[in-house]
C-alpha cells in the first residue's frame, strides 16, 4: 500500500481509538473533555473505549472495515487491481455503515418503528457525530477514493480522485441532503406519516397560488406576488443596467470611473439597508413624505410599505448587478462588426438597432434572469418594507418563527420558491449557455466602439443621472441617519446611537467593549474570517477540477456545485434547520453551521472567479510540470496556486464581505451564542429602533469598504470589480 493509504488508515484509527466519538457540548477545542473523565466517560469516550465497556456495540463493524485493508493487503505482493478493490470495498462498507447506524439510532433509540419491531426495543441512544466520527468518515472517504483511483479512474491520480470525492461528499451532505430532507418533511403530516395528498393540499393552497386579486378580491397568492415582483424587478434592472452600461462604455461621459465605483456598493451593502434608507425617505415620517405632505397639505400615508417599497429597494440593490453583467456584454460586442455595418452605409442608429442590440440579446436575457433570481431570493428588503405584500421568502421565515412554527408549511413554501429559482437557473444555463455572441474575454477584436446615437444616448443619460443621484441620496441618508436622534420627529444630531452600539469603556481588566453591538460585531468578523479562506479553498479546488481535469460525470458535477447559486438563502436556512437539528449531524446553535452555510452559499462565486482566472493560465504549464516529474498535488500547489494569487484574494474578499452582509440564511441559524450583525440589526428594526440599526449598518459598510480597499492595495492592480463582472457574466 502506498503512503497516503497508510496515512488515512492511521488517521482513521486515531479517530476510532483516541478522539471522542460523539459531539462535545462545550466544543472540541475547549479540551474540557480531556480532564473530565476521558477516556471512559461515555460522553467523551472514543469508539474503542465505548466498545471495551460494552456500549454502543453497533460501532464495532467500523473497526473491521478499518482493519480490512491492513489484513487483506498488508505489504504482501498482490495485484494492483486486487488492492484497489479491497480499498474500494472497505470504503464503501465503512461509509454505508456510518450512514446506516447514524440514521437508525438517534436521540431516542431506534429512529424508525420498523427497526424496533424487527430488532426489539433498544435501550440506548446516540448523539451527533464528534471529532472521532468525523475523522473516521474522512478516512473511509479517502480510502474509497484511493480505491477508485487504483482501479484506473482519472489515470489513477489519487489526489484528483480524492479531491473530487471530497467535493462530491460535501456538496451532497451540505446542499442535496438538506434539500431532500426538506422535501421529505413537506411530504409528511404532523404525525410523521408520508402522504402525497396532504402535500398537494398544502402545496396548492389558495394562500400560495390563489388568484383572487384578478377577480376583484383583495389578495393574490404569495407565489404570484413573488413572481410578479421578480419579473418587474428583472425587467427594470436590465433596462437600467443597460442604460448605465451604455453610458459607461459608449459615451463621452466624463465621470465613468465614478459610475463604475457605484457598482461596488451592492457588494458591501447588507441587503436590507437600502430598505431602511427608503423608509427614511418615504416612510410615514420620511423626509420626502413630510416635505410633500406640507407642500400640498396632504395626510402622510404608508404607501411605501408593500409592492412600491420592495420594488424601489430591489431596483436600487440589484441594478448594479445588472450593470456589471451588461458592461461585459456591451464591451464584448465586436467593434469590427459595428464598423462593418457602418462601412455598409448604416447610420449610427441603424447600426445600434440592427447590429449592436441584437448581439446583446443573450446578455440581456442573462441579466434579466439574474435580477429575477436575486429578487426571488431577497429577504431583507421585503422583511423591512413588505407591509401587506407577502412574498415567498419572508413567508417562509414567518412560518418558522413566531406563533406558527409550522416547519411543514415552511418547507412547502420553500419548494415553491425553489421551483421558480431553479427554473430560471436552468433556463439560464441550458438555453443561454450556448447562445453567447460576445467574445469570451470581454474584449473586442480591435477597432473602436461606435458612440451611441443621440436618440439612445439622451434617454440613457437621463435615466443614469436620475438613478445615480437617487443612489447617492440613499447612501447619504444611511450615513447621516445614524447621527439623528429620531428621524422625522426629532432631527437633532447626536452620537447617542453610536455610543449605545459601540461604546467603549475602561474597567479593572482594561478596555471594556460595553456597546450593545460589539458582541455580534466580533462574532460576525470571526465567522466571516473563518468562512472566507474555506470558501476560497473549496471554490478554487472545484474550479481547478472543472477546468483542468477530465472525469466521468463532470457536467453533473458542475451543475451540482453551481446549484447553490439558485437556492435562496431562506431555503438554505430552513433546510439546514430541518437537516442538522438531530443526530447524526447535529449542528444547530453552533458557529460551524453558520460557517458551513456561508461556504456553500458563496461557493459559486469562488468557483466562477477560479474558472475565470484559471482559463487564462496556459494548460501547457501544468503539463510541463507533469513531464518534469511533479505529481498533480505538487503541480497544483507549486504552479497553479502561485499563479492564481489575484483570484485567491478576490475570492477571499468576496466570501468575507458576503458572509458579513448575508441575512437570509443567517436569520434561521443564529443562536444566542452566535449572533450575527445583520440579524442583530433586523432585530433592532423590528423594535422600531432605527437609529441603532442605521448606525450599525453604516459601520458595517465602512468596515467592508476598508477591507475591500485594503485587499485592493495588497494585490496592487487587481481590479476585483472587473473580475466579478467577468465571472457574473459567465453565470
Amino acid at each position, binding site marked *: 500500500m502506498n503512503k497516503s493509504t497508510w496515512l488515512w488508515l492511521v488517521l482513521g484509527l486515531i479517530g476510532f481509538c483516541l478522539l471522542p466519538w460523539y459531539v462535545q457540548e462545550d466544543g472540541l477545542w475547549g479540551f474540557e473533555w480531556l480532564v473530565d473523565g476521558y477516556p471512559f466517560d461515555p460522553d467523551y469516550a472514543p469508539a474503542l473505549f465505548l466498545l471495551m465497556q460494552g456500549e454502543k456495540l453497533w460501532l464495532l463493524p467500523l473497526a473491521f472495515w478499518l482493519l480490512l485493508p491492513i489484513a487483506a493487503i498488508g505489504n504482501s505482493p498482490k495485484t494492483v487491481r486486487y488492492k484497489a478493490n479491497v480499498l474500494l470495498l472497505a470504503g464503501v462498507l465503512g461509509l454505508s455503515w456510518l450512514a446506516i447506524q447514524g440514521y437508525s439510532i438517534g436521540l431516542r433509540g431506534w429512529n424508525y418503528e420498523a427497526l424496533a419491531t424487527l430488532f426489539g426495543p433498544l435501550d440506548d441512544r446516540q448523539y451527533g457525530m464528534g471529532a472521532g466520527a468525523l475523522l473516521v468518515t474522512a478516512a473511509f472517504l479517502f480510502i474509497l477514493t484511493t480505491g477508485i483511483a487504483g482501479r*484506473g479512474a482519472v*489515470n*489513477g*491520480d489519487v489526489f484528483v480522485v480524492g479531491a473530487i470525492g471530497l467535493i462530491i461528499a460535501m456538496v451532497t451532505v451540505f446542499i442535496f441532503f438538506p434539500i431532500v430532507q426538506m422535501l421529505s418533511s413537506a411530504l409528511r403530516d404532523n404525525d410523521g406519516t408520508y402522504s402525497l395528498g396532504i402535500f398537494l393540499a398544502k402545496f396548492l393552497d389558495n394562500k400560495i397560488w390563489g388568484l383572487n386579486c384578478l377577480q376583484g378580491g383583495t389578495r393574490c397568492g404569495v407565489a404570484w406576488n413573488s413572481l410578479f415582483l421578480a419579473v418587474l424587478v428583472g425587467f427594470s434592472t436590465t433596462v437600467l443596467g443597460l442604460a448605465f452600461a451604455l453610458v459607461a462604455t459608449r459615451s463621452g461621459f466624463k465621470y465613468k470611473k465614478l459610475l463604475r465605483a457605484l457598482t461596488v456598493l451592492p457588494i458591501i451593502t447588507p441587503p436590507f439597508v437600502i430598505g431602511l434608507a427608503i423608509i427614511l425617505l418615504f416612510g410615514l415620517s420620511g423626509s420626502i413624505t413630510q416635505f410633500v405632505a406640507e407642500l400640498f397639505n396632504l395626510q402622510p400615508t404608508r404607501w411605501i410599505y408593500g409592492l412600491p417599497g420592495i420594488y424601489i429597494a430591489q431596483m436600487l440593490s440589484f441594478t448594479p448587478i445588472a450593470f456589471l453583467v451588461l458592461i461585459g456584454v456591451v464591451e464584448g460586442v465586436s467593434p469590427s462588426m459595428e464598423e462593418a455595418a457602418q462601412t455598409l452605409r448604416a447610420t449610427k442608429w441603424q447600426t445600434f438597432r440592427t447590429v449592436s442590440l441584437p448581439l446583446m440579446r443573450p446578455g440581456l436575457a442573462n441579466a434579466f434572469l439574474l435580477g429575477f433570481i436575486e429578487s426571488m431570493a431577497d429577504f431583507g428588503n421585503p422583511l423591512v418594507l413588505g407591509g401587506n405584500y407577502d412574498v415567498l421568502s419572508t413567508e417562509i421565515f414567518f412560518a418558522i418563527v413566531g406563533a406558527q412554527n409550522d416547519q411543514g408549511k415552511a418547507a412547502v413554501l420553500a419548494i415553491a420558491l425553489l421551483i421558480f429559482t431553479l427554473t430560471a437557473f436552468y433556463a439560464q444555463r441550458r438555453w443561454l449557455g450556448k447562445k453567447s455572441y460576445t467574445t469570451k474575454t470581454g474584449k473586442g477584436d480591435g477597432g473602436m466602439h461606435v458612440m451611441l446615437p443621440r436618440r439612445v444616448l439622451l434617454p440613457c443619460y437621463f435615466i443614469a443621472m436620475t438613478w445615480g443621484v437617487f443612489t447617492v441620496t440613499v447612501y447619504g441618508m444611511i450615513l447621516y441617519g445614524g447621527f439623528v436622534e429620531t428621524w422625522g420627529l426629532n432631527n437633532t444630531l447626536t452620537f447617542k446611537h453610536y455610543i449605545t452600539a459601540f461604546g467603549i469603556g475602561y474597567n479593572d481588566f482594561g478596555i471594556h467593549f460595553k456597546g450593545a453591538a460589539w458582541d455580534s460585531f466580533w462574532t460576525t468578523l470571526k465567522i466571516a474570517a473563518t468562512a472566507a479562506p474555506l470558501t476560497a479553498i473549496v471554490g478554487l479546488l472545484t474550479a481547478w477540477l472543472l477546468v483542468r481535469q477530465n472525469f466521468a460525470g463532470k457536467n453533473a458535477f458542475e451543475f451540482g456545485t453551481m446549484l447553490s447559486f439558485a437556492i435562496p438563502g431562506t431555503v438554505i436556512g430552513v433546510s439546514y434547520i430541518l437537516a442538522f437539528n438531530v443526530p447524526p449531524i447535529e449542528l444547530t446553535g453552533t458557529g460551524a453551521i453558520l460557517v458551513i452555510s456561508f461556504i456553500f452559499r458563496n461557493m459559486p462565486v469562488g468557483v466562477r472567479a477560479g474558472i475565470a482566472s484559471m482559463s487564462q493560465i*496556459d494548460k*501547457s*504549464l501544468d*503539463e*510541463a*510540470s*507533469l*513531464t*518534469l*516529474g*511533479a*505529481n*498533480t498535488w*505538487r503541480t497544483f500547489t*507549486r*504552479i497553479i496556486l*502561485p*499563479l492564481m494569487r489575484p483570484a485567491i484574494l478576490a475570492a477571499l474578499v468576496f466570501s468575507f464581505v458576503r458572509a458579513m452582509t448575508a441575512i437570509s440564511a443567517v436569520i434561521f441559524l443564529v443562536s444566542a451564542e452566535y449572533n450575527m450583525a445583520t440579524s442583530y440589526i433586523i432585530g433592532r428594526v423590528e423594535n422600531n429602533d432605527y437609529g441603532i440599526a442605521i448606525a450599525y449598518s453604516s459601520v458595517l459598510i465602512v468596515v467592508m469598504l476598508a477591507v475591500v480597499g485594503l485587499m485592493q492595495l495588497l494585490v496592487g492592480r487587481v481590479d476585483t470589480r472587473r473580475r466579478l463582472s467577468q465571472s457574473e457574466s459567465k453565470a
Partner: protein
Amino acid sequence: MSESQFGSKAASVEFQQVSKIYGKTVMAVDSVSLHVEAGELVTLLGPSGCGKTTTLRMIAGLEMASSGSIKIGDTDVTHVPATDRDVSMVFQSYALFPHMTVLENVSYGLKISKMKKAEVLDRAESGLELVGLSGYGSRLPSELSGGQQQRVAVARALVLEPQVLLFDEPLSNLDAKLRRQVREDIREIQTKLGLTVVYVTHDQEEALAVSDRIIVMNNAVIAQIGAPRELYAQPVNEFVADFIGEANLFDAQVTDVNDTLATVTIGDMQITIAANGNAVGPARLAVRPQAIDLYDVGEPNSLSGVVRKASYAGSHMEYQVETAAGQVFVVSDAETDRTVGADVCLRFRSTGPVLLPPA
C-alpha cells in the same frame, strides 16, 4: 567541459497498434505502429489535425492510449502517467513557469527527483551553460527574448537526462531568421549527447533539415516513414509527394514495362523511369516543379502549353503553365523571362519524375 556530465540514458520508443479515440467516435490516432531507435531524431510531420501532436503526447503520457501498447526502452509504459515516465517535453509555448526565475525553472524537475541541493544547482547551471545562457539564472522568463525562453525550456528538459526528449513545434513562435539557428542548435545538442528525440512539426523544410528519419502522418494514420532524402525522392503516395516539397501530379499511361523500367506517356511526351511496381495501364506521376524545364515552341518529345501566370520571387521565377495534361507549376532560374500568354514546351529532367506505386 561541464557538458560532459549529461550522460545519455537514451532509450528507444515503440508503438504497437496504438489508437486514441476522443469521446466515442473521434479517431485522433488510428492503430499506429512505429519504432524510434535510441539516439535517433525522428520527426512527426503532417498537416494540422493529422494526429502527430496526439502521438507525441501519448509518448509523454499526457494522453493515454485507447488501445495498443507503448514501450520506452524495454518497459511497457502504456498505463504509466506522465509524472512517472522518464520523458521530458519542450512545449510550443515553452511553458516556462512565469513566477519562477530561469534557474528555478531549470531546477524544478531536479528538485522533485530529490537530488541534493548542491547537485541541483550544479546541474542546472551546467544545463544553462549548455544552451548558452549561463548568467541568466536570476532573470524571470518575461525578461528574456523568445529565442532565449526557448533555450531555457530546452535546458529545463535536458537536465533531467530523459530517456526520450520531446519537442512540440518548438520553432513556431520564433521569427524566420532565428528558426534556422535554433533548429541547428537543437540538432547539435542532440547529436552531441546522443539523445532520443521525437520532434513534431508541420513545416516540411524544418523536418527535412533536422531529422534522421521522418514519419509523415495524415488523417490519423502514418502515410510514410523514411529518411528525408527517401521521402523527397521516393514518395509512396500523392499526399506525401505533395506535402513534402510541392509536386505536380499527372495522370499518365504506362505503355510498356521492361524489367524495372517503365515507358510512360504523358500527353505527347514519352519518358522512361523506374516502374515502382506499376504494370501497363494508367498510373500517377509526380514531378517536382524544380525538375521541369521550359523550352521554346518546337522542342521534340515535350508537353506544349501556355504560360498563365508568371511571378518573380527573387531567387527564382514561378510559372503556372496550362497544358493538355493539366495545370503545371514550374520553378525556373530567375534569368528566364517568359511572359503571360507565351507558348512554351515543357520537359522533365531525367531525375525528376517519380511513378507513384499503385494504391
